């Protein structure tokens, strides 16, 4: 079994590589920046410095959503080559565009707070009448959030509209649910959760949160949110059972500390099961190279030399 951990930085990949190696998997790290795609002569090649990606059974990908324009064709190609990835093609496009993310969740029957989006600033006051205060108002420039704030009245919303710069592509008004956020890590059908609450106060810092046992409904909603967004492994944020965010990046340290878990080990086990279910690839030449590498570290290394 071979798994490639593809990430932007080595320190993100290292814990996963070690956990996979502990399970007897041949795991390597590759810096995402070293990968390029080449389409020629009626096919596509995934090129990487010092690495042959197609020999792997699976890829574990950790990348920021704004890399979508590169990740999407890469995911499509990995899928075409029969390599399992924790992320499905199309999911980075979903994650990168917030209005699209909420539409995708809603049409797939996931509980989300009521959300209204429009491209015209003239509509914003009319839109506000369809949601009750307090609400979260956001403006977008391209796909990036330009401004975001909680507004509790018409006058605050007017202030928000007044503060918006002219080159805005859209606005979003979302029902604000005044409860603490529950952050979940979904790994296949397992869910690990932290409630962002310290004493009786809600906190934004995940590290200050506390262990939380999700109800069956919350668990089901978190898994469904991850799956319809195209992820087998993801971080899902819930407020009162409503999904407000889905992200492929896993903040393992906070969860390991607060939930007394070893998420890298959980992910490694998930990968081993997934590869067994799909059947590992056999590459005789690559197996020989691996054998040579392991023997070279022993007394037989001299014979090979």
């Amino acid at each position, binding site marked *: 079994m071979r798994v490639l951990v593809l990430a932007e930085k080595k320190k993100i990949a290292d814990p996963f590589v070690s956990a996979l190696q502990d399970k007897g998997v041949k795991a390597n790290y590759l810096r995402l920046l070293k990968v390029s795609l*080449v389409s*020629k002569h*009626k096919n596509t090649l995934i090129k990487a410095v010092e690495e042959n990606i197609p020999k792997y059974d699976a890829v574990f990908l950790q990348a920021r959503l704004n890399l979508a324009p590169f990740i999407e064709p890469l995911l499509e190609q990995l899928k075409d080559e029969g390599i399992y990835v924790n992320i499905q093609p199309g999911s980075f496009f979903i994650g990168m565009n917030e*209005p699209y993310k909420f539409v995708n969740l809603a049409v797939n029957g996931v509980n989300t707070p009521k959300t209204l*989006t*429009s491209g015209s600033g003239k509509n914003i006051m009319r839109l506000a009448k369809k949601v009750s205060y307090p609400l979260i108002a956001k403006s977008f420039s391209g796909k990036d959030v330009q401004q975001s704030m909680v507004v509790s009245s018409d006058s605050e919303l007017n202030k928000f509209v007044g503060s918006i710069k002219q080159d805005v*592509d*859209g606005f979003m008004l979302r029902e604000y649910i005044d409860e603490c956020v529950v952050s979940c890590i979904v790994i296949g059908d397992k869910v690990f959760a932290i409630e962002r609450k310290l004493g009786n106060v809600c906190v934004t810092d995940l590290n200050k949160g506390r262990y939380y046992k999700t109800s069956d409904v919350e668990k089901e909603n978190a898994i469904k949110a991850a799956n319809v967004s195209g992820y087998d492994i993801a971080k899902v944020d819930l407020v009162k059972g409503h999904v407000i965010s889905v992200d492929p990046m896993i903040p393992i340290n906070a969860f390991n500390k607060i939930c007394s878990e070893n998420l890298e080990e959980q992910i490694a086990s998930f990968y081993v099961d997934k590869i067994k279910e799909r059947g590992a690839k056999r590459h005789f030449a690559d197996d020989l190279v691996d054998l040579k590498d392991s023997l070279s570290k022993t007394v037989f290394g001299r014979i090979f030399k």
Partner: protein
Amino acid sequence: MVEKIISKKTQKKSKKESGLKRKKLIANKVPASLLIIGSKKVKWSTANSLIDEAKKFFTKVVFVQIDKIQIQTSDQGAALFYKGNNLLDFDAIYPRFSSNDYLLAEPVLKIIEQSPAYCPLSLKSYQISNHKYYTAQALMNKGIPSILTTLFISPKFSKLAVNETGYPFVMKLISGFAGKGVVLVKDKNQMESILDAVHLFEEFICTQQFVKSRKPGTDIRCYIIGNYVLTVKRTSKKGDWRSNLSRGGSANLINASPELIDAAKQSAKTLGMDICAVDMMDKNGKWVVIEVNFMPGPFMKYLGDTVVREWVKYIYKKVLIRKRREQRKKEKLAQNE
């Protein structure tokens, strides 16, 4: 390679024939509704022509710019509204979005896909056709001839990509529109200075082999309208290596070879588009696809309303087929009961 400009006499004759069929269609008009969703930077001459032509076939025609739409999501699902009216209550929806509409185009297309209305374009086709590299990858993986294209993130590792294309090559910013983000890179020095600038803006870089056309400054645009293909030869204005009419030039209807038409049709099918335009060029005597357009301009200056008329006629025919199918289903159900 057949590439013959269609004479005005032949054009008139075929126009007359299709005009008769069109009149027959209009005369037997069935109640049907069409929603056209335009880009936020709409070209009003095209929009007005579309609306006028659509009114001849459809009993109800509504045109809305994408930025005027309200997208609503809740536990009950997702919906589109304009001035309080539900926009999914139409027989057909024709979206005309550019890459500038990304933020709203993706959610709008996702909602349209869930509705029963006929739409000639899919969400995936919008995502792929607005991404130069993704288009080349999708086409080449299906065996459709295109131009050697690479995609990379880090300028540091751009050598890998340049080894494939060689100099000169065309560098594109992947969300570039109407050829504005395109540079012809002639040598290593020029490339290094460009890559420095590109890195500052954190752009993704797509490089494409520079192919010298047999007739520089000319290419072919195939308007795909279902199974029907209208082929146009475009010539750029003098001195520009891009034959993009938004930058000047001329266009003529031509008779194209079956191979060219087949490649164009296959490209549209691969991307899931019933209506689009496929741009092609002659590479060493063979046709290769350069680009697939989600929102092609109808070249009204050169072709009049020919293209617009065919778009509307095709959508109307699709609606008719669906309506007849539904009618038959209903009749069968009634018979069974």
